[in-house]
């Protein structure tokens, strides 16, 4: 249709430009370009909010209210279980372990890359808080007492959150009855794995975080709700038993989350 131009000089210039930008980016000398994140965040936030308002995405108000009530009740159950354990620990003169001086930072979800509507559920979010808000890689992200995910990457103005159903995320967890295992994500589902065969886990039991904080107080605090056991797989010839978990958080409709800050 149109005559082809000599592309070699342009290709070499653009490729060289990319390599230079990449090298500067790797060496951390492109922080002055963080101002570019603001317009991109605005575009991303606008499109994500618009997307959330689509009729086939947003659920009816009644279902949303029920889900909210459900979350609240489960949070109360988790709090009750925590109080029980604390009481038991105090009785035994043990110190209870809990993160110190925890602050929650409200953040808006502005993007969900990896999300194909109707085909898959999101497995990571982009939130509108970053290094300037003291976010750190590894910080837990929650909604009420429910674990949403963990911060995996941070830039000046935005951060990426790996959701609990992300295959790259695994965390130590325990059931209400104290069985310990590892929660792993993958393909939008959650599995509680590495639970000893001698442990007793039942359907409907809550799965809570076991706690994984570092010396700086960054990480996942204990006793956050990961989800509920929906089915178990116990084979006497296996070393461990595993269970499927369903998170109480509706990742598709999530627009606000909270980040644990130390």
């Amino acid at each position, binding site marked *: *249709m149109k005559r082809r131009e000599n592309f070699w000089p*342009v290709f070499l210039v*653009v490729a060289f430009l990319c390599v230079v*930008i990449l090298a500067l980016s790797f060496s951390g000398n492109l922080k002055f370009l963080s101002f570019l994140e603001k317009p991109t965040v605005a575009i991303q936030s606008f499109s994500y909010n618009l997307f959330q308002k689509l009729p086939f995405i947003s659920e009816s108000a009644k279902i949303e209210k029920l889900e909210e009530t459900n979350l609240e009740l489960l949070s109360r159950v988790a709090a009750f279980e925590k109080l029980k354990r604390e009481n038991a620990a105090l009785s035994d003169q043990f110190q209870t372990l809990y993160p110190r001086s925890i602050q929650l930072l409200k953040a808006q979800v502005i993007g969900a890359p990896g999300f194909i509507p109707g085909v898959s559920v999101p497995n990571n979010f982009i939130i509108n808080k970053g290094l300037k808000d003291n976010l750190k890689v590894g910080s837990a992200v929650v909604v009420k007492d429910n674990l949403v995910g963990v911060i995996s990457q941070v830039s000046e103005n935005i951060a990426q959150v790996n959701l609990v159903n992300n295959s790259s995320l695994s965390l130590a967890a325990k059931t209400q009855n104290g069985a310990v295992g590892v929660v792993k994500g993958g393909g939008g589902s959650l599995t509680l794995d590495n639970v000893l065969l001698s442990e007793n886990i039942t359907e409907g039991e809550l799965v809570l975080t076991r706690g994984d904080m570092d010396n700086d107080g960054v990480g996942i605090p204990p006793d956050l709700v990961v989800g509920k056991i929906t089915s178990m797989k116990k084979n006497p010839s296996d070393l461990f038993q595993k269970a499927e978990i369903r998170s109480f958080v509706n990742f598709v409709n999530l627009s606000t989350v909270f980040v644990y800050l130390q």
Partner: protein
Amino acid sequence: MIPITLLTLFIVAISGITTIPFSIGLLAVSTVLFKKSWVFFLALGLGLFLDLISIRSLGYTGLIFTIFVFLIWLYERKFEIQTTAFVFISTSLGSLAYLKIFDYQQIFPQALVNSLLAILFFKLLWLRLDPHSETI
């Protein structure tokens, strides 16, 4: 140029919602139809935008897009590329490579959707630019 500009703006708008690499389709169609060197700059711009919203190292996606456009140009030297089959295959392979490099899930359905949309856009633009042609 107006359809390409509008499509670029649309792709920029939806990039935060889905990982379907519409940019690959846009670059393939633009390269095949226009055969102009500004496509390399479009590749760089789209790449930088995707790097910013996905919190990747800046320049990474731009480099991949630039190489993708370069490969299409190389192919064009010896073969006819203004065909539906070429757009489909190049977009599919480009999408699969992109999704694999960035470790996204469900790469095949995403690549398929992207390729079909690229064909649709290619045909619409072809009719607009050269409605009497029968080479498609």
